[in-house]
């Protein structure tokens, strides 16, 4: 985006560029490759041949610098929560978070006696899409990614964000 900054002052150009860029962004949801629990197995299954996430342009990246989407797939222990937050902070903007499964959504089965579990990853990072399930099937993860695509396409990325 750096090369395009301040080059186009006409609103109408910015609007259509939004569409162009959002179209290309939503077609390449590179997700951050790390899993925390059994949800990660479903994420791997979603990425593998049968469900083939690559159809949607979603491919795993091993570095936060290259990733657009963080899929929090599994139980976020308090020990891991500090790491999850740091990894999120290391990702480049624009960045998104998908909370996958009951544990990441709300603590799941660790809700009552989980002395070591964060009760919802949204306490430490902003979550864009929540996927219910324990664990969610690959189809559910794919639907989550498609919802995120929809959200990306509707976002005005070049317009100044109001913080």
């Amino acid at each position, binding site marked *: 985006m750096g090369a395009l900054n301040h080059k186009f002052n006409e609103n109408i150009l910015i609007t259509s560029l939004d569409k162009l860029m959002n179209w290309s962004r939503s077609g390449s949801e590179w997700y951050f490759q790390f899993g925390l629990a059994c949800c990660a197995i479903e994420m791997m299954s979603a990425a593998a041949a049968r469900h083939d996430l690559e159809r949607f342009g979603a491919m795993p990246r091993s570095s936060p610098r290259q990733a657009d989407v963080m899929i929090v797939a599994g139980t976020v222990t*308090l*020990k891991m*929560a500090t790491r999850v937050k740091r990894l999120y902070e290391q990702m480049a903007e624009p960045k998104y978070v998908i909370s996958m499964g009951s544990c990441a959504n709300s603590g799941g089965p660790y*809700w009552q006696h989980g*002395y070591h579990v*964060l*009760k919802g990853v949204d*306490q430490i990072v902003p979550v864009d899409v929540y996927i219910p399930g324990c664990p969610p099937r690959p189809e559910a993860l794919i639907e989550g990614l498609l919802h995120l695509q929809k959200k990306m396409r509707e976002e005005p990325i070049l317009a100044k964000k109001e913080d």
Partner: protein
Amino acid sequence: MTEQEIYASLSSKFGDQVVEFIEEETLNPTVVVEASAIADICNYIKDTETLQFDSLMNLAGHDPDGESDLNVIYHLHSTELDHYITLKTFTPRDDGSVASVANIYRTADWHEREAYDLFGIKFSGHPDLKRILMEDDWEGFPLKKDYVPAEFYRGMRIEKVK
């Protein structure tokens, strides 16, 4: 060798330090021993020709009821002679200690760290006794039955269901 014979051998060698022999249907036959003697006993059963317990399969901490002594349980196997025995020892809840067997069985190194991490059992003579699962700045020992979870950890709320 049967468990009964192993117990007889231990009790003739160590006398009072071997407290009792528990044989129940649901439990592995268990020899209860004093905490101060556990290292000597492990050395003995590892090196004696008729016992040859060369494998410590598991070492676990245990809090029976939140009031009485904490237990440490050792599951041993002889790969040479193919017999098993379970040893159990006990230590006061707060400032007791159990002799480390990490120098006798390397398996015990991380297992003792786990028992320390979750039950606060101290192992004297352990080469590097520090937490293994919880963060270093964690307060309390979470698997003790009288453990009360903190409300916050590093600013993150640990919610409680009322």
